[in-house]
């Protein structure tokens, strides 16, 4: 054991022990960048002053050892090794003006940045997890009162919707005979419309009961309704000057006739 240490004078005892530990724990690394970051700690310097060249050599040595120990290394470790070997050559050789692309220094600076950034994120993650945490160090309300969500749905409809809706029903089927909606009620408007059509022929005094529509004389409710409507319509027509109206005495039949225009 001790003999080995003196034979390999390029790396210190601690570095070599670390490297061995690394190899044993190879599965514990989260990829080549993680391994590089761990290796960089052996340099014991601020990451900003790290020697990327030395780091590249450490990494390549690690991969070499892994190969000797016949450890299966994932492909990305080998890709990184190839890239670091390339970086190393760039760093060692004087820059070739004919060659395009970034210089070795630029590539090394970026790798150093990546390592520093990863390190910073690890430290930040540790600081974050060290904070007081909800449910561990401080607590939320234990007995919560659920806010009762009263979902109030307001429905809107415009007058137009209403009228169109009504129009839709009324124009729906052509073949359905018009059905008077209230079987037992006649409105004044209906009576009026009916009478306007008939009054033109009423030259003589006629009992108002003659104007009651057919089929409305059997049911007492119908008679009441249609009588009232017809009477109201008569008053309306009299007001309009279309008819004359008379009643001999209280409860006597009411008679109407067409009012003849003066110039006739």
């Amino acid at each position, binding site marked *: 054991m001790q003999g080995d240490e003196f034979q390999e004078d390029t790396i210190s005892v601690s570095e070599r022990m670390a490297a061995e530990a690394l190899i044993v724990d190879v599965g514990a690394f989260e990829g080549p960048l993680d391994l590089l970051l761990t290796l960089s700690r052996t340099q014991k310097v601020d990451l900003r002053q790290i020697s990327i060249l030395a780091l590249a050599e450490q990494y390549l040595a690690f991969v070499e050892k892994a190969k000797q120990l016949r450890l299966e290394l994932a492909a990305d470790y080998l890709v990184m090794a190839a890239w670091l070997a390339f970086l190393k050559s760039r760093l060692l050789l004087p820059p070739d003006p004919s060659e395009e692309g970034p210089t070795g220094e630029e590539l090394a600076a970026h790798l150093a940045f990546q390592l520093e950034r990863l390190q910073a994120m690890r430290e930040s993650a540790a600081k974050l997890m060290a904070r007081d945490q909800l449910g561990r160090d401080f607590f939320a309300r*234990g007995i919560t009162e659920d806010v*009762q969500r009263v979902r109030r749905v307001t429905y809107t409809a415009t007058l137009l919707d209403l009228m169109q809706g*009504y129009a839709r029903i009324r124009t729906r089927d052509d073949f359905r005979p018009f059905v008077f909606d209230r079987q037992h009620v006649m409105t004044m408007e209906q009576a009026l419309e009916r009478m306007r059509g008939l009054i033109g022929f009423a030259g003589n005094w006629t009992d108002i009961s003659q104007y009651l529509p057919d089929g409305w004389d059997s049911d007492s*409710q119908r008679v009441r309704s249609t009588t009232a409507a017809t009477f109201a319509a008569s008053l309306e027509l009299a007001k309009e000057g279309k008819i004359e109206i008379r009643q001999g005495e209280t409860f006597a039949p009411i008679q109407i006739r067409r009012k003849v225009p003066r110039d006739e």
Partner: protein
Amino acid sequence: MNKDTAPQNDSLFEAPPMGEQERMVEAILFATADPVSVNELLGRMPHGCDPAEALANLRKRYEGRGVNIVKVGDGWAIRTAPDLGFLMQKETVETRKLSRAAIETLAIVAYHQPVTRAEIEEIRGVSVSRGTIDQLIELEWIRFGRRRMTPGRPVTFVVTQSFLDHFGLESARDLPGLKELRSAGLLESRPPPGLGTPGEGDDAEEDDDNQAEMFED
């Protein structure tokens, strides 16, 4: 206070000052999911504490506040002041377009009030679901009118003041008539249907009756 129930913590330390004890009770009552008994408080607080006193102080402190400390069974809990319960409701208002069935039913009630359910169905030519009527009643756009004095005494529906307000009408009579609808192009131009007498048989009342029963249940 029965100190025996307290765990034998380090009795070398003095009990925290009463102000601290109040803080502790406050935090425990706040965070615990169930009401906490004095014994439980005693068990959780440092040795030598007097949770009963801390609780009494704290209770006074919360008097008249938005939350109070109340006794629930054997335990104590922080609860919303009863007069603020109304804040625990959150109303979300969602605006939806009224369904076609509801619009048509509403239109029929407006144009033909007072109208029975059977009559609405007759006019619409399809049955009117209970839900549609309920919805319109809930919206306070229609309400029950007088019962029709026909066999079965079916209920009638009329529109409400809210309905008039919503649609900007002074009265239901202000609704445009069929003629106006027609001239406004809302009705297809077609010879006006005669002021016909009911084409339905004399058993209309019976229908009404049946449907009224259907509606009732």
